[in-house]
């Protein structure tokens, strides 16, 4: 159920993201989604890819600091209120979201939302109980 997200530590300087993209491309990895959290000095690149273990190995092999974080992917309607409803559910159950990013699914034409929460199991339970579709990891990697 849980999606493995790859996080990479990057210094906030020219060409760093390009280098990561090149390493992944050379390893035959397709990036499904990404987001960057940046400060003035460093950034954290977060990636959802088709083959997380291969990507992790390739990036570590190039000496980058990489961690794997388990995140939740949900599928919501791509229309006004789609995200608000899902977040409302989590808020009511007092589950705080550390960060969030989204992308459009090519196959279902729905929006896929990646959620990072402290307690994944509780969040999944809460979302499912309220009728939200929690995606299987393989469906996110291989859609």
């Amino acid at each position, binding site marked *: 159920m849980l999606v493995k997200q790859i996080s990479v*530590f990057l210094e906030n300087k020219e060409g760093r993201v390009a280098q990561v993209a090149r390493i992944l491309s050379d390893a035959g990895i397709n990036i499904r989604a990404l987001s960057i*959290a940046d400060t003035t000095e460093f950034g*954290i690149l977060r990636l959802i890819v088709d083959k997380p273990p291969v990507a992790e190995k390739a990036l570590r092999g190039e*000496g980058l*600091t990489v*961690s794997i974080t388990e995140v939740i992917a949900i599928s919501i309607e791509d229309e006004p209120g789609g995200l608000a409803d899902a977040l409302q559910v989590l808020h009511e159950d007092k589950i705080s979201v550390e960060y969030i990013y989204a992308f459009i699914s090519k196959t279902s034409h729905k929006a896929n939302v990646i959620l*990072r929460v402290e307690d994944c199991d509780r969040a999944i339970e809460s979302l499912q109980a309220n009728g939200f579709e929690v995606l299987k990891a393989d469906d996110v990697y291989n859609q």
Partner: protein
Amino acid sequence: MTIWNPEYECMGDEEKRELQGKRLAETVAHVYRNVPFYKKKMDDIGLEPGDVRSIDNLKDLPFTYKTDLREHYPFGMFAVPMDEVVRIHASSGTTGKRTVVGYTKEDIDTWAEVMARTISACGATKADTLQNAYGYGLFTGGLGVHYGAEKIGMSVIPISGGNTKRQIELMQDFGSTIISCTPSYALYLAEVLEEQGIDRSKIKLKAGIFGAEPWSENMRKDIEERLGVLAIDIYGLSEIIGPGVSQECPEKCGLHVNDDHFIPEIIDPDTEEVLGYGEQGEIVFTTVTKKALPLLRYRTRDISKLDNKPCACGRTSYRMEKVTGRTDDMLIIRGVNVFPTQIESVLLELGETAPHYQLIVSKAGTMDALEVQVEMTQALFSDEVKKIEDLERKLRFNIESTLAISAKVTLVEPKTIARSEGKAKRVIDNRNL
């Protein structure tokens, strides 16, 4: 220019060697009797106090290292009972333990005497007003200068370090003529005076004694031009006495060692062989008048050379060249001794192995700035910004409380710190000293 104590500072070579030999013999007997550490060291090499009869025997004596002082923390190397100790100073420790030094009443008088020579060497007399901007406290700078200046009979302003606004106010209102501080602070004061557009005629400063950190000839020129003073380099270390070990005279051709009290030698730091005049090596001092903490052949780790030719100023004391470096990796940043291993000990608190790190020292304006770069590791990394920022904050706080100076902490990607022969280069000093 005034020579404070011509009898000793201008003593003939023969006479001085005889005095040094006599004082050395007394010191060796004193430590053999009262410091178990020295008794053992001498017994181990089969040396008895009676074997030391002249200055020529200096080379037979064992060396003393900074680690010896740490291992005998706090008072284990003292040669007198504590009821004779009237003052204790300490320098920052590298791995928690400080270097502790003690003084008897007589030692304080000796210190005042050598500091009177140091201060007089810049032309100061009792008619002058000294603004003492060295820190007062455990650091020897403030009180060392203070007692020397009082001995001369100067009007001393014990303003201590920092609070630049007050420094500049009192400098004008009290008419300070001599200033003592670190050279970087002197430059900073000059800068602030310029910024505030203070009329030079309102400042009476004519000379300054600057030390506690290495500085270049260019920096001297800068201070002399911008602060409008004669800038004199002074040298000392708390283990030997504090400031007052040696000082330049206005000839600026090396620092006159107060060698009737502290006998200098230059050695090859690797072979420990004594080197000749003019040869560069590690300067080693033997104190021959100190009572509370006499040290035999103390390894300073400072690189210098000795000149035994008389100086144009009239003093006959041997001169040591301005210290140009260290035989270990100690840095002096804003007057504070910093060892890269101190950073390592902070980083080790994070886990079993310390991440690679590098110290980058530079000049931010006139002051030294320290940046500590730490390579991110898998173990320290998090996908959350706030956790990484917490790590940075924690590191900065721990480094500051260990070093006693502020530092900027930057987390960098792995393998970005240059390695030479597999080992990371720990220090980049961009100060052009």
